[in-house]
Structure formats: structure tokens, C-alpha cells
């Protein structure tokens, strides 16, 4: 069993930690570019203007006024840039905290290192926050962060909350929020040849038709759908036919797929997928990815698989196995169990008359602790008792 600890393999799993703030810094920079470009153009135009009107002999007060306008404009730019700078600094601070968190892995020598345990407690907390936010449980997430302030820089609350809000708005039949998001991320969507915006626009068009607002539908289609004819011709043609096939629940309506309310859920899913890809976030949460691996790695064929009712105050059950525990038993059911090539049983195995096998030492120690008279043994699982002479050695391998 190799216990060599290679921190880099673990760092790879956490790439979203650094990716996300980097992505946001990029967006932040783009906003700054937009502001700067606009005002640089204004300033150079205004400087030329004030000079030439001064040469042409306007009154000096006029020039002062023009310069004051330039000052006002620059103060506006300064305010915007200060806002972006604060944002950038916050993202840098976050990135720095995350770099340090990942660097900590280099101090760890092996997986049963206490430091690794501590690191993983922090990791679990941030994975939990991430998973809570993805489910839209923002109050829970905030409560968990408040109880563990050290993870605040390691979690991305705003971006996940915004994502959830837009997702929900789509599920509730509103396109505005998602379209605004598409606008903000236009260049990315274009580069990735992502069809989200078209699909959302198409849905808005369908809604106009559904509600009998044909003229608006046509105008909307001309403005937003038709310009995409080169890539979405079929969809545009098909959607125009809706104008003669009004929404109905008839099974034979040839366009019932377009009228289906289920399309909103598909849009919501597709938005989340686009959003997560843009920000370098995995689709299943990292908690889900980790658990899918961890549950399998721990699962054995001996883990309880029956349909036990989950009872919290059960009778005698000293099982320590996390997979057998009521919390995870059901979750681990769909997953494969761990692969083992070698047996791993307690040393000096002996069998009781009921077929149960234990390490001799464990069995005798348990029986002694249970206060049994010498020469008697008790099965720790079933509670049955026998004379020590009834046990026999077995040879599992």
C-alpha cells in the first residue's frame, strides 16, 4: 500500500479555487477597458476642442468652463476605476488566500498526517458551502461561513448566488435576467459559439406567440432571431410556423415541443452549464465528485445493502463504518465498491460455531472486557456465547 503523498495531485482537484477569481479579474479588467476607452476618446477630443475654440478667440471663461467639464468627466472615471480597483484588490486577496491554502499541501508528508486531516476539515467546510450555494441555500451557506470565518476567502458566494438567481428566474418563466447575463458575457459566448442567447430569445418569441401577441412576436423575431439565420435557420423557420399553430395541449399539435413548459427547465440547465463552463466550475459540485469517489473507495461487499429503515435511536449497533451509517448508506447504494486484490482480515483468525470469523485476540479481549468468565467467549456481533474450546482456527489465504 503506497502512502506517498503527492500534493500536486491534490492541487489539481482544486483548480476552480484559482480559476474563478482569475476569470472575474479578467471580466473586471474588461470593464475598466470599456470605461477608459470611452473617456480617453472624450478627453483627446475635448482637449483639441478647447484649444481650437480658445485660438478662435472665445471668452476665457468659456475655456475655463470647458476645462471644468473635462475635470468632471475625469472625476467620474476615477470613481469608476476606484470601484473596479477595490474589486480587483478583493479578488487578489482571495486568490492569495487560496494560493496559501494550496501551498499548505506541500507541508504534508502522508495522508495520515494530522496536518492533512486539518487541511481536509477546512476543505470539507468550503465544499459544503459551495454545495449549499449551488442548491440555493444561501442562509445556510452564510451561517456556515460565519461559524468558520477562515473559509470566507475560500468560497465564492456572490457568483453562485447570482447563478442560482438567474437559473430560478428561467425556471419561473422570465428571460430578462438571463439575457442581461448574456449581454455581460457576450464576447465569451460568441467565442465559444454558445447558443444560449439564441435559445432564450427563441423562448421569449414563443411566449409572445403563446399569449397571442403576434405582432410583437414578429418584431422580436426580426430583431433577435433572424440575424442568426446562418446558424439557426431551421429553428427560425420552424418557430415562424407557430404563428399559424397556436398553443394548445392537443397531442397532435405538431409544435407541442416548442410550446412545452419543460423548455424552461432545459434553458435553466443549459444556462447553469454555460455559466459553470465559463467560470471553470465543475457541473457536479466538488463535494459530489469527492463523495462519489470516497463512498466507493470505502464501500465493501460487507457494507449493509438491505432496506434498513433509517432509525436514529436504534438498539445495539456498534458499527463504525461510514458506509453502514444511516447518513451515507442510502447515498452509497448506486456506487460500485472498492477493488481489492488482497485479503485483509485480522491476524490469527478463528471461527465461532455460527460461522463468524474474528481475530483471536480481538475475540478474547472483547469477551474479557464484557466481563465473561475465563474460558467463555461472546460473539461481538450476535451476542451468542460459547466455550473457548468451541472456536477453531481457519485459513483464509
Amino acid at each position, binding site marked *: 500500500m503506497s502512502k506517498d503523498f503527492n500534493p500536486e495531485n491534490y492541487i489539481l482537484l482544486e483548480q476552480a479555487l484559482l480559476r474563478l477569481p482569475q476569470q472575474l479579474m479578467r471580466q473586471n479588467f474588461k470593464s475598466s477597458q470599456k470605461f477608459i476607452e470611452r473617456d480617453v476618446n472624450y478627453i483627446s477630443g475635448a482637449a483639441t476642442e478647447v484649444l481650437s475654440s480658445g485660438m478662435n478667440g472665445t471668452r476665457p471663461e468659456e475655456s475655463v468652463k470647458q476645462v471644468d467639464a473635462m475635470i468632471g468627466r475625469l472625476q467620474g472615471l476615477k470613481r469608476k476605476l476606484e470601484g473596479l480597483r477595490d474589486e480587483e484588490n478583493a479578488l487578489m486577496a482571495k486568490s492569495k488566500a487560496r494560493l496559501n491554502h494550496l501551498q499548505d499541501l506541500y507541508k504534508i508528508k502522508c495522508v495520515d498526517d494530522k496536518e492533512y*486531516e486539518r487541511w481536509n476539515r477546512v476543505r470539507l467546510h468550503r465544499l459544503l458551502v459551495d454545495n449549499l450555494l449551488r442548491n440555493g441555500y444561501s442562509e445556510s451557506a452564510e451561517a456556515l461561513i460565519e461559524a468558520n470565518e477562515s473559509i470566507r476567502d475560500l468560497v465564492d458566494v456572490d457568483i453562485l448566488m447570482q447563478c442560482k438567481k438567474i437559473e430560478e428566474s428561467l425556471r419561473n418563466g422570465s428571460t430578462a435576467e438571463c439575457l442581461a447575463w448574456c449581454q455581460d458575457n457576450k464576447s465569451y459566448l460568441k467565442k465559444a459559439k454558445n447558443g444560449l442567447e439564441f435559445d432564450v430569445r427563441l423562448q421569449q418569441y414563443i411566449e409572445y406567440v403563446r399569449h397571442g401577441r403576434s405582432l410583437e412576436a414578429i418584431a422580436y423575431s426580426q430583431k433577435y432571431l433572424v440575424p442568426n439565420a446562418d446558424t439557426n435557420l431551421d429553428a427560425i423557420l420552424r418557430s415562424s410556423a407557430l404563428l399559424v399553430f397556436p398553443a394548445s395541449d392537443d397531442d397532435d399539435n405538431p409544435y407541442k415541443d416548442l410550446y412545452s413548459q419543460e423548455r424552461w427547465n432545459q434553458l435553466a440547465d443549459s444556462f447553469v452549464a454555460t455559466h459553470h463552463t465559463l467560470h471553470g466550475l465543475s457541473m457536479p459540485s466538488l463535494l459530489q465528485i469527492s463523495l462519489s469517489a470516497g463512498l466507493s473507495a470505502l464501500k465493501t461487499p460487507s457494507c449493509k445493502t438491505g432496506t434498513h429503515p433509517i432509525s436514529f435511536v436504534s438498539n445495539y449497533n456498534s458499527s463504525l463504518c461510514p458506509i453502514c451509517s444511516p447518513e451515507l448508506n442510502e447515498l452509497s447504494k448506486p456506487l460500485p465498491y472498492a477493488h481489492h486484490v488482497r*485479503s485483509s482480515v485480522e491476524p490469527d483468525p478463528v471461527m465461532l460455531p455460527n460461522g463468524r470469523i474474528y481475530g483471536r485476540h480481538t475475540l478474547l479481549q472483547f469477551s474479557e472486557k464484557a466481563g465473561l468468565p475465563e474460558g467463555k467467549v461472546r460473539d461481538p456481533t450476535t451476542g451468542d456465547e460459547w466455550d473457548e474450546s468451541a472456536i477453531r482456527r481457519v485459513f483464509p489465504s
Partner: protein
Amino acid sequence: MVYSGGSHIRVMDAISKEFNRLEKDGSFDKYIDNVDELIGLLDKTRNTIDAAPQSRREQLANLKSGCTVWTNKMAESQKEIHGALSKYAKALDKKFKVDIEAAYNPNAFPESGDKLLDRAVAMHLIREGQFQVADKVIQEANLDIPGVLEQEFMDMYRILEALKLKDLQPAIEWAASKRERLSKSGSNLEFNLHSLQFIHLFTHPNGAGTKLALQYARENFAVFGDRYLADISRLMCAFLFQSNLQASPYGSTFLSPSAWDDVAHSFTKEFCSLLGLSPDSPLYLAALAGAIALPTLLKIGNIMREKQTEWSSENELPVEIPLPPSFQFHAIFVCPVSKEQTTDENPPMMMPCGHIVAKDSLARMSKGNPNQRFKCPYCPNESIPNQAIRVYF
């Protein structure tokens, strides 16, 4: 994905290097300095014109060239910031090429089991003592978790808090109330708590300790006489060595620095066990095992993707995950003949000679005939499959 030591530059060092550059060159402060500078020039221009209108032409020409310089400066700053940002982005791109979803088993968390994960999370928070957070999760996820569980763990943390303050009374009361179930499971917790209380009194620095300890022993040890006579006499012998306990054979028992932690640990274990729960949060253990397993599964997942095959539909992982021994909770039996793990469908069977193989292997060796004699693959003994008995690890 395999990194060897030696001259290899550590991933985080490469990334940190670019990040440090970004911190230095990527700050928006330079934009703001530039803007301030131009505002300064504009202010000066305006004030000079205001005071000396005849200087206007010169001032405005000067301003115009100042604005050109400013435009260039802004462009330069943009270039610097952009350069630092893209270099950092490239460093991340270069080091983080792997798609971690390759390690994900898509069969995990089916939608039908929507609330199971939320539930596991809430349970985890409860057993970690984060009750307020747990309550929020239960509320927001609309879960149905019996309040009695939270009550139980509040009780557990109350007792643990007392133990931290070296107050054993709440723990002793709890153990006494569960005496029967504890002793049935072979637990010595109640007696151990009393012993610790005795030792705590005995070693109390105010000098009256030995007297109090003796009184305590008289009042409390009698009920344990049957089962713990040897332990009790050991404790009592301490009175003979009280002047120099440190050097006595009892030093290690009486002055063990971990005694309180040990008793807290064993209390937690017994407490959880009576609730049918494991002492460590299963969610924590599973997430930890997952972190350990993921690099290996990621490797396999990527190979499988290339070959366009799937591992996730099998009922066993395609590769062994080396977990530390503390992660083993069940005996593992791999049939020495077929090299397969035994299951309920293919259970371990013991032949009369004491050797154990999987049921399927037994059938194969006897050619499917339950009365066919065959030789044990590990010893000279012969037997028939019907003589083999089902065993349980």
C-alpha cells in the same frame, strides 16, 4: 499527471511566481494615479487661465500635449495590467489541464435521491455541533430530521464541554443511565470515568486530595467490585506511593497527559454507538477518502475516456485505492482461487480443512457437482462442496 521530484518546478511555485508579478504589475492604482495627474494638470490650467487670461493659448496648448501624454500612459498601464493578467491565466491553463469530472461517477446522486445529500450534510453539521447551521439547512432544504437527534448531540456536547473543564459528573451520570447497554457492548466507560475522577481527586494539588479520593473510592467503587477488582486494587495501591507518584509504577496511570482526551474520545465513541452512529462524521471520512482516491480515479477516468469505455457501470472500482489502515472498517476477503471479493451472492465457504474459498470457486473446482470430491488447492485434504460451510468475516 505524474510528477517526479528532482528538477521539477512545483506547480504552485510556477503559479505563485505569476501571481506575484500580477500583484506588482496588475494593480489598478496606476490608472488612478494617471487620472489624478491629469486632473492636477486640468486644475492648474483652469486656475491659471482664470487668473491670467492672456496665458490661455500657451496653457491650452500645454494641456493638449498633456492629454496626449496621458492617453499614452493609460494605454501603457492597460498593456501592463493586461500582460500580467494573461501571464497568470496562462500559468493556470498550463498547470490545470485536467478535467476533474473524468473522476466522477455519473450514477452517484440520482435525482430520485435528491434530498439524501442535503440530509447527510445536515446530519454532519449536527454531529459537529454546528446546530444553528444545521437548523438553517433543515429549513432551507425542507428536511425531515427528528429533533431528538439534535437534542442527543446537544447533550453530548454539553457533556464534552464539562469534560474539558475537568468536570466528570455529567459524563458519569450519562454512563450510569446507560449502564446496561454499555456493559452489553463490552464498554468500560463508566468505570473508566470513575477511575479518572478518583485519580483527579488523588492528584489534586491542594493536599486534601488523598482523603477525598479515598472517600470517593469507598462511595463509588463497590458496584464495580465483581468485574474490575484487579483495576480497583491497582488504584488503591497508589496510596502506598503517594509521596513519589511520578517515579512509582503508577506514574504512567496517574499522570498520563492524554487521560482526559482519551476519556473524551471513548465517551464520544460510546455515545454515538448507542445512537447507532459512528464516532467520526461519516461525511467527513467519505470526503477525506474521496480526496485520497480522486487522483487515482482521475487518472483511470482519463484513460477510460480516451478508450471511450466506462468504468462507472461496473459494481467494483477498476483500480485499487490505497487508503490508510484506519479507513478499513470491514474484513476484506479475496478468494485466493478466483481473486474476487466475496459477496452475499458469492459468499466465502470454509472447507473441512479450514481453508476458505469463494462459493463460485468451489463449484468450479468440483465441476458444478455438489458431491464431487476435489482436492483443496492449499493442502492435501479432499472434500466435497456439500461439506463446506458458509462463513462470515
